[in-house]
């Protein structure tokens, strides 16, 4: 069992999310930075769909009530500790029953993941252990975690030996990069209706991540955007990564808890390969964009998925090596 002593800023249980329920208005939810969650699970020998703890901007403080392997991935947590020892990220650590993990603030980025060997073993709700904070339901506590929550752990499926390398999904440490590459956009349904200045602004201006950004969407402040003519839209199904333009002129890129249907113009699509980077958009920081085409997006995603697959296989191989 793992006990929450302090829930940080906003922490919740997340796995790969819910499927096949969107026609009931029930969205996917799940981890906002899915590769980070998968790697955290891989590092402790969990299956990819095991439930982890997603933390936002400031990490939680937790006590383990049994011996466990833990792994931290995602945004850097430079002050993460187990008791008095530092807790490094992107590797696995053995912690003893009674240990307190104090994870501290994120130095950059927005979301980090804690996986524990055996996974967080709450009973699934509608087929998933994820929490949909916006919809107000989920597995286990079914809400953001708070101090006092006690979460069951599953039985570990593999006895990890320590992985001796530090893993990073992108060889360029983009949490540290002073000039991070722009987020990649594809044309959306209504991109062609954007005023020329708006289309230009998306490519050339820096937008600020709004303080009210959350798992529903990232709000972008900067040059207000507009269409050449007003558009009355009927509600249609929507997906994560869609960049919507509400009447105020501040675009929103939909995240994992977006409402299943929506009626705002769709002015761009975030390339799926950059959805994890959307999850790491820290409120108050700048973000830039770059238009690409479908083929470029497809290749970038395929390359990322190959890397992720390689990393996971490598981790698994190392975990199975004799100590």
């Amino acid at each position, binding site marked *: 069992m793992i006990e929450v002593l302090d829930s940080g800023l906003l922490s919740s249980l997340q796995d790969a999310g819910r499927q096949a329920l969107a026609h*009931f208005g029930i969205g996917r939810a799940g981890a906002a930075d899915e590769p980070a969650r998968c790697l955290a699970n891989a590092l402790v020998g969990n299956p990819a769909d095991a439930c982890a703890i997603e933390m936002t901007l400031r990490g939680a403080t937790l006590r383990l009530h049994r011996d466990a392997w833990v792994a931290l991935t995602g945004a850097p947590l430079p002050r993460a500790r187990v008791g008095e020892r530092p807790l490094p990220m992107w590797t696995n650590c053995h912690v003893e029953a009674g240990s307190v993990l104090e994870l501290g603030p994120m130095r950059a980025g927005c979301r980090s993941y804690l996986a524990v060997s055996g996974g967080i073993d709450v009973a699934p709700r509608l087929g998933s252990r994820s929490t949909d904070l916006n*919809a107000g339901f989920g597995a286990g506590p079914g809400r953001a975690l708070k101090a006092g929550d006690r979460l069951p752990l599953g039985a570990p499926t593999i006895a990890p030996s320590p992985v001796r390398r530090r893993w990073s999904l992108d060889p360029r440490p983009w949490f540290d990069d002073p000039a991070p590459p722009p987020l990649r956009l594809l044309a959306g349904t209504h991109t062609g209706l954007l005023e020329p200045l708006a289309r230009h602004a998306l490519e050339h201006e820096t937008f600020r991540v709004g303080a009210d950004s959350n798992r529903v969407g990232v709000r972008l402040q900067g040059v207000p955007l507009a269409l050449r003519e007003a558009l009355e839209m009927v509600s249609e199904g929507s997906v994560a990564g869609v960049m919507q333009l509400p009447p105020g002129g501040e675009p929103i890129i939909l995240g994992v808890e977006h409402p299943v*249907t929506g009626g705002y113009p769709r002015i761009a699509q975030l390339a799926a390969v950059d959805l994890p980077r959307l999850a790491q958009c820290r409120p108050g920081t700048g973000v830039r964009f770059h238009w690409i085409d479908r083929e470029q997006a497809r290749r970038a995603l395929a390359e990322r998925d190959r890397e992720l697959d390689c990393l996971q296989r490598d981790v698994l191989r190392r975990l199975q090596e004799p100590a």
Partner: protein
Amino acid sequence: MAGVDIERLSETDWLVRLGDTVDAGLNAHVQQLATHLRASAPEGLVDIVPAYASVLLRGDAALATLPGEALPPPWRAVIDAMAVDAADTVAGREHRIPVCYGGEHGQDLAAVAGRLGLDADELVRRHTAAEYRVAMLGFAPGFTYLLGLDPALAVPRHDTPRTRVPAGSIGLAGAQTGVYPRALPGGWQLIGRTPLQLAPLDDPQRPCLLAPGDRVRFEAIGPAAFARLAAEQGDD
């Protein structure tokens, strides 16, 4: 299938648009398409999300490798094979939903009736006379959009939404009747409330009482019946 616009909305999702209006006939075609796709279950199709005039088709991760904009071929084949005029091939249940109209359960009923030049009882009579179709669910789990409203009852939504609409509220906005499954912010004109638990979210096969394509009739009940049914449901 003619007159259909298909757009790739993401690496794994395609939007099939049959039109761009809120219209019961058009939505019936949407429900037919959704029913047909659900029954055919082509490979890689994970979610079928009907809306007023479109269906969003969500696929599994493997579809991201498909180049171009076109629909995955197995899905295309199912759509092309569909007979458009099969008017009764919409899978759906029938529901009779008890509603306590007006008073504390329908705070806008009197004002809406006044605006329409009707008395409240006549508004209720007309609202309960119609058979509605569930056009779609969206906005929140279990929030239900119904078509079939008597055109004489069309009113715009509030300029300023309420921060909290009670769970089970029935609202009007334009040509739509909406049902709030739980307490939510909302701008629709609230005319009544059902004591039924609309979105218990416990059965993965049927997490909500209402689903797209279902037919709905409303039945007027009094406050005492409301209280009794609410208690049976375990509600406040």
